[in-house]
């Protein structure tokens, strides 16, 4: 089949050789390149930009057992790198990139992801971001499971990891561009030996706007062999690009060895391959009838969201708009080049990394240039488009491009732009306050200009918008612009992070899915709108709590292993919906089995579906404590703005009056005819706010947290993460009983550093005895090594010292584990509950038959499916 293809772009390669000559090596480190064995290299590459020192560290078995890899490694090493009072711009803040043990296999779709972890400028708690592109796998095939960058450089530098030559350098590279679409191209050409070798180079960069805004993203590149151009995928959320530019990193470059099907050296390649081929076949047979990911990627749900009144429109006020078809699926099918493999790593038959080829820019410093735009994704179409009242696909494409190349998170930008546009609409902002920007709904040009301001570091864009919604609402209130309560209600952010682009108003479970998250309201933890609102499959608080336990834990696993979420449920086995009851079908059990197979096949560590959840929970609970350590992680930070819960304004109420009136009758037994709209809004607010609190109670209980959202001692123990520093962090928040127990079990003696208390038998507590027996054979955790740790645990030590004086006959608990020298965790004998959230009627009905052996070509593929896409 032949498609129209426009692969001509403006190139930025005129002086590449001169640029490379101008490099000055500031530090060099030689290493022995190695391939991973069973998915791991067991090495971490550490870069200290302040001292210009490059070194490597061993990753031990215990670290792998507890943290698995990817996001788990990122959080573990970040915890060790920073102190409770560290702020994002401090030199000790780290950026950690790790693909996880599965990351880099070429047989299973979505297996080349890198997880990036850092202390976020917008939330001041850890952020994790999942990104495609080739950097992570190429880094791993060079010899490292993780790259950790700390310190700060005075001038712009690049870090080059050459996995072929076994050399890492920190270099001054003064001539290359900062903006990512140019930087990626220039560095790729500089470090590839020839055209064929370009696919073995990947560049991480962030653009000019990341220098001035807190919502900076990272771009991970890969070389597209058909387009002969660099593509960019984004680690978008939480401002890691801002940390990157603050450290004065212009680019991280990897030049890896040639990738082969067994580069990750799995234990059982056949098992991995069979799982991959199964999924490739499903993609071939059903994608056209399900989500059409190969044609339009995630934009397939723009129309679906609109149809269900869920497409965020005008700052999450409304859920649909008559002009949505202008930015709907059909339009994107025309915009995206069709029929080209568009995976962001090898082997992704889902192929959703679409691009708009040969787009001619209309604004900004690259005006008139012909570029490839990576995207838009659904989040961009909704965030930059409908949520800002913009229904012109060209503006969405243009803004998407500039967000990427400038290093700006499109989701945060969409949501903050929607916020300022509503402020403008309601007179909280005006042209005088915006410095002349006419931020009326739908003004794409103004949306772009605000972004260009961010890149130039000037005007309203840099001073206000770039600071994100959470800071803007405070700044506006301080300036006397608008009522603080109202600003609070309409600012869609949680913990400081802008909400991603779904309407949660009518789905209580999704309110939890957004705001009971570790990093802030991002939909990658749980997307429950259809289960909850559309299909009413999780009606009780307990049902919702179960879903808000299972799905966040399950989805965390993708981030531990370098995987993409999309191939899990944006394609399903043809008989998934007929074979399994609805709540089970929502988990796509056969795909979960695929993950069990590929993990076991890669690492040789045989796991089960239950162990998969336990692997995730260890990291999830650890991250929750990490939030607490950094000053958040308690109940008050888990509350949504009211805009995410219900109608704030009269217009919003009126837009869904029938629904809301009916709810007044059914939920509150109040006759709507007897009340004014203002009264009805207030009644809804009271009801919905209280209802959310009940959900919080149920979820905390299911997750093993106290009523203030703190993981209990038992929860930490069950997950094998009861390290002294972790226990010390939760200690002041525990119930008196648990705190007493913790102090006794984790007492330190006279030193200012925590020591391991020997477990003592207690005839009255057989349970404790059993645990003791298990751990008593273990080598006690060693001494704390670094000054940082001493500082981090001082508070705890004081508490513990006091505790020791009063502990008297309190039975002691088993030795805790240290993070750096952790003890191997045996699988807990306690099985997590996997209650099936009760639900009925799937969103999709699938009936399909693959024709026998396909012995006579395409005609044998008979497929009949009806589909509703979902995230």
């Amino acid at each position: 089949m032949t498609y129209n293809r426009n692969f001509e772009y403006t190139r930025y390669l005129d002086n590449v050789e001169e640029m490379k000559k101008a490099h000055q090596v500031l530090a060099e480190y030689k290493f022995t390149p190695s391939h991973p064995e069973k998915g791991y290299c067991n090495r971490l590459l550490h870069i200290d930009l302040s001292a210009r020192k490059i070194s490597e560290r061993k990753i031990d078995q215990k670290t792998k057992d507890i943290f698995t890899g990817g996001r788990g490694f990122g959080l573990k090493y970040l915890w060790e790198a920073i102190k409770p009072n560290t702020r994002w711009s401090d030199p000790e803040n780290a950026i950690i990139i790790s693909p996880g043990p599965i990351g880099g296999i070429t047989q299973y779709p979505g297996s080349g992801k890198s997880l990036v972890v850092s202390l976020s400028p917008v939330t001041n708690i850890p952020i994790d971001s999942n990104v495609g592109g080739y950097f992570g796998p190429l880094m791993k095939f060079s010899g490292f499971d993780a790259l950790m960058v700390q310190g700060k450089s005075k001038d712009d530098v690049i870090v080059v990891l050459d996995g072929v030559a076994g050399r890492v350098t920190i270099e001054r590279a003064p001539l290359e561009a900062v903006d990512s679409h140019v930087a990626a191209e220039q560095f790729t050409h500089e470090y590839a030996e020839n055209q064929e070798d370009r696919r073995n180079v990947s560049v991480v960069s962030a653009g000019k706007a990341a220098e001035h805004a807190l919502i900076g993203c990272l771009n991970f590149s890969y070389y597209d062999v058909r387009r002969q151009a660099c593509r960019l995928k984004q680690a978008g959320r939480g401002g890691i690009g801002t940390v990157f530019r603050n450290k004065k990193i212009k680019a991280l470059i990897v030049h890896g060895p040639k990738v082969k099907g067994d580069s990750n050296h799995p234990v059982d390649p056949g098992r991995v391959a069979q799982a991959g081929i199964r999924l490739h076949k499903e993609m071939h047979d059903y994608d056209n009838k399900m989500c059409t990911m190969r044609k339009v990627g995630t934009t397939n749900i723009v129309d679906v969201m609109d149809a269900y009144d869920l497409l965020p429109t005008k700052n999450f006020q409304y859920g649909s708009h008559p002009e949505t078809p202008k930015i709907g699926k059909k339009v994107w099918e025309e915009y995206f080049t069709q029929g080209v493999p568009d995976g962001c790593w090898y082997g992704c038959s889902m192929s959703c990394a679409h691009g708009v080829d040969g787009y001619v820019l209309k604004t900004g410093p690259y005006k008139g240039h012909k570029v490839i735009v990576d995207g838009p994704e659904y989040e961009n179409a909704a965030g930059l488009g409908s949520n800002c009242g913009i229904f012109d696909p060209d503006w969405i494409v243009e803004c998407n491009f500039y967000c990427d190349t400038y290093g700006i998170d499109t989701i945060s930008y969409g949501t903050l732009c929607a916020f300022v546009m509503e402020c403008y609409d309601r007179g909280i902002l005006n042209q005088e306050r915006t410095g002349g920007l006419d931020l009326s709904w739908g003004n794409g040009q103004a949306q772009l200009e605000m972004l260009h301001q961010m890149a130039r570091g000037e005007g309203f864009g840099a001073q206000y918008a770039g600071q994100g919604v959470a800071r803007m609402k405070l700044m506006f209130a301080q300036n006397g612009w608008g009522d603080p309560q109202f600003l609070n209600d309409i600012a869609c952010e949680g913990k400081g992070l802008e909400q991603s682009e779904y309407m949660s108003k009518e789905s209580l479970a999704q309110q939890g899915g957004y705001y009971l998250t570790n990093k802030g309201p991002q939909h990658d933890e749980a997307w429950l709108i259809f289960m909850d609102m559309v299909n009413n499959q999780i009606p009780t608080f307990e049902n919702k709590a179960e879903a808000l336990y299972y799905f966040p834990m399950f989805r965390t696993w993708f981030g531990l292993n370098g995987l993409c979420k999309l191939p899990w449920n944006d394609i399903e086995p043809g008989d998934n919906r007929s074979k399994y009851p609805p709540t089970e079908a929502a988990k796509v059990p056969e795909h979960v089995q695929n993950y069990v197979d590929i993990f076991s096949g890669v690492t040789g560590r045989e796991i089960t579906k239950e162990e998969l959840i336990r692997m995730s929970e260890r990291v999830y609970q650890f991250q929750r404590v990490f939030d607490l350590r950094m000053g958040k992680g308690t109940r008050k930070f888990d509350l949504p703005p009211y805009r995410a819960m219900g109608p704030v304004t009269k217009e919003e109420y009126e837009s869904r009056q029938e629904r809301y009136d009916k709810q007044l009758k059914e939920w509150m037994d109040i006759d709507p005819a007897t009340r004014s709209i203002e009264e009805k809004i207030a009644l809804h607010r009271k009801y919905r706010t209280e209802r959310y609190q009940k959900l919080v109670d149920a979820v905390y209980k299911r997750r093993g947290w106290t009523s203030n959202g703190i993981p209990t001692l038992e929860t930490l123990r069950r997950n094998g993460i009861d390290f002294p520093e972790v226990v010390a962090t939760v200690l002041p928040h525990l119930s008196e009983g648990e705190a007493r127990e913790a102090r006794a079990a984790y007492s330190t003696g006279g030193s200012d550093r925590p020591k391991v208390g020997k477990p003592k038998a207690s005839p009255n507590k057989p349970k404790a005895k059993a645990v003791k027996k298990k751990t008593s054979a273990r080598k006690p955790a060693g001494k704390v090594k670094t000054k940082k740790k001493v500082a981090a645990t001082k508070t705890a030590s004081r508490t513990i010292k006091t505790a020791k004086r009063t502990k008297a006959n309190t039975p002691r608990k088993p030795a805790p584990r240290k993070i750096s020298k952790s003890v191997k965790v045996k699988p807990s004998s306690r099985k997590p509950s996997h209650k099936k959230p009760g639900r009925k009627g799937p969103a999709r009905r699938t009936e399909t038959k693959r024709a026998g052996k396909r012995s006579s070509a395409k005609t044998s593929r008979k497929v009949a499916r009806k589909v509703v896409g979902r995230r």
Partner: protein
Amino acid sequence: MKYLKTNPAQCKGVRACEKICARTFFKTEDPEKSAIRVIQAEGGFEINVCNQCGECIEVCPVEAIYRNQQGVVMINKSKCVGCYICVGYCPTLSMKTHPDLREPFKCVACGACVKACPEKALEIAEK
């Protein structure tokens, strides 16, 4: 375009084709390493082998699959990353894999099986 034309009605299930194919390319008689497969079907046999349609060329992410001058679809093993998308996307499921082999393999219309088949069920043809 050169391809292996099959005549399943002639096939008696001797499987000499599988043996010679595996022997020619992998020095073994393991039928799992044969690019041609004889499948027992109702009332006879089916023969599964690549018809050189070339759909795999488009889905290969690294342009490792190409059509040679005779029109035969070939795999450049040096470029191949072993992702097996071509295996899942083959309309006739004729792209094969084996746990011992990193790259997939397929019929290249060499004709070895044609000579080996005692029933004359195979021939090299043009289309």
